[in-house]
């Protein structure tokens, strides 16, 4: 195949990369607040835009890609010219991504994730070239391969997270009430009196702080909740029309409504399979399963939804990966409770003290502190589950099942690569009991942490695994 040029979107992307340079001419004028200087700056700004646009076009003209029999070559840069050659066996995952803008321009983004090192290569290609290139680098599963598509309760389970909307709406109403109260009280306050008080009388300033703080806090919480809802809505759009196909060698997933994503993962490069039990997943009893392969972390879209009694889907997609197997945990008597409860305990205690103080000093913020205290209590509850269930089991064929709790989510991770690194570390408090913490470093930088496990048992497991 002869050399091909990237679409015009590549030049736009190059321009966007250097947008920070656009601010340089304006800084001086804005800092001095100088209007005549601003006009000069705007002229300089136009010159900078022209130079940047010209540079982007030049970079675009000199960039090319070429697909030969067994390798893809990508060339970029003018002054620092770089040619990267990628072989299909170096890749763990090929992803074709089409945002609404890219669909409008007839382009697509292809992400190529390395199998044995960190990082990925990103290419903007015309849509007509993107999918054939992805198929050439990593062949799709056979047409008659098993297809999983969430239906019925699985789809409801995925959509259930949108129930957080109700909490968000409640917070907006509460915030509106708080703000209205502040505005009503402000109507009786003279502005000059406010300024004099702020300068001269600290007590009055405190009163004003007490007036504004609840509304500010409420708006902050509302902002956080709205951001959360926005993230959930984006996630719901991202996971819509989800389907997955696999033939035991490769897995291909398709998802999205506005943004279309097609991923092909080479199963020989899979490093870990993660069954995530978040609170929402527990309520709906639909547990998402995520795949990690090489430098591909795959945290945004699961490869399938696991439900009790329907293990065959997961088994068909990833053979020999019994994530649902019940495994024993080490004896609990020497386990360290502070290792699990120290953080939520500290935060919860702080919230409790602040709540008690606010009850007589600043009752308007008590509800927010109570809410935070409740979140800390829930956090502590989930960490307590980690105390009982966190552990590591060494299975046949160099596979390791890791169970750990992070935040509110319980993870069951099957480490399937022999290339994982391990760090065992102890503290003086752990030494007499012979326990340690374990950090598992997967290739390409992902990390798992298991707390307060028996050091000797883990060391024996590693020795038997490596023999």
């Amino acid at each position, binding site marked *: 195949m002869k050399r091909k040029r990237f679409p015009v979107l590549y030049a736009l992307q190059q321009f966007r990369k250097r947008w920070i340079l656009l601010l340089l001419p304006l800084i001086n004028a804005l800092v001095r607040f100088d209007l005549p200087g601003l006009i000069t700056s705007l002229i300089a700004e136009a010159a900078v835009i022209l130079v940047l646009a010209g540079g982007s076009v030049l970079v675009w003209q000199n960039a090319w890609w070429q697909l030969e029999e067994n390798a893809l070559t990508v060339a970029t840069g003018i002054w620092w010219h770089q040619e990267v050659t990628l072989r299909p066996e170096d890749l763990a995952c090929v992803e074709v991504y089409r945002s609404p803008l890219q669909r409008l321009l007839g382009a697509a983004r292809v992400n190529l994730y390395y199998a044995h090192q960190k990082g990925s290569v990103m290419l903007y290609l015309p849509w007509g070239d993107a999918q054939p290139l992805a198929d050439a680098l990593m062949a799709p599963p056979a047409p008659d391969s098993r297809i999983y598509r969430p239906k019925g309760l699985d789809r409801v389970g995925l959509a259930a997270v949108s129930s957080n909307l109700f909490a968000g709406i409640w917070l907006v109403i509460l915030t509106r009430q708080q703000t209205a109260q502040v505005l009503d009280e402000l109507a009786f306050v003279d502005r000059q009196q406010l300024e004099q008080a702020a300068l001269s009388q600290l007590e009055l300033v405190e009163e004003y702080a007490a007036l504004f703080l609840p509304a500010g806090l409420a708006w902050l919480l509302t902002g956080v909740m709205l951001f959360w809802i926005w993230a959930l809505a984006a996630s719901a759009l991202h996971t819509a029309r989800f389907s997955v196909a696999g033939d035991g060698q490769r897995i291909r997933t398709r998802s999205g409504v506005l943004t279309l994503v097609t991923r092909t993962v080479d199963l020989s490069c899979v490093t870990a399979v993660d069954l995530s039990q978040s609170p929402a997943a527990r309520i709906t009893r639909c547990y998402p399963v995520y795949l990690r392969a090489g430098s591909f972390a795959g945290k945004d879209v699961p490869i399938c939804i696991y439900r009790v009694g329907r293990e065959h889907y997961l088994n068909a997609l990833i053979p020999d990966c019994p994530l649902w197997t019940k495994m024993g945990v080490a004896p609990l008597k020497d386990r360290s409770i502070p290792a699990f409860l120290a953080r939520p305990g500290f935060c919860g205690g702080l919230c409790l003290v602040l709540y008690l103080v606010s009850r007589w000093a600043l009752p308007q913020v008590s509800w927010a502190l109570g809410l935070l205290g409740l979140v800390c209590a829930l956090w502590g509850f989930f960490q307590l589950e980690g105390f009982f269930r966190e552990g590591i089991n060494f299975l046949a064929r160099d596979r390791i099942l890791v169970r750990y709790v992070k935040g509110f989510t319980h993870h069951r991770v099957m480490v399937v690569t022999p*290339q994982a690194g391990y760090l065992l570390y102890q503290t*003086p408090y752990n030494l007499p009991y012979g326990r340690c913490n374990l950090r598992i470093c997967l*290739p390409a930088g992902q990390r798992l942490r298991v707390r307060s496990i028996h050091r000797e048992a883990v060391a024996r497991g590693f020795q038997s695994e490596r023999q």
Partner: protein
Amino acid sequence: MEVSPIPGGVVVFGCYLGAVGLVPALALFALVPLAGLLFWLAWLGITFLAARFGMATIRIHISPRQLVARGGTIFPWEVRLPLDAGVRLYRISTPLMRLLGCCLVRVTTPSGGVWLPAITQMDARAIARFLGGEGSV
């Protein structure tokens, strides 16, 4: 094969760490001489403890399939790195290190890396040969 930091190498790193503390100590000395002196002594004490209970206790065992490094007395640790693929070795030395016949080695793999401080030049070459024999360095 097994390697450990050599005493001369630990002294070199002690000197470097000590020199790092000299800058704030001198700045403090210019303001309050006694505080500068005390800071410098405390820094040397911490450096000595770090070298004695941290660096000097490291033991490295390398087999064809994995590298195991153990160290630390107060905070014991153990690192296990598979040497199956993508292993890189970096050898760093300064004039002072070369004078005392030691160097600093960093071994990296796709799943992490480990610093091998203050080992002899001969040991470093042996490790390079050992890993190079696997065709990955």
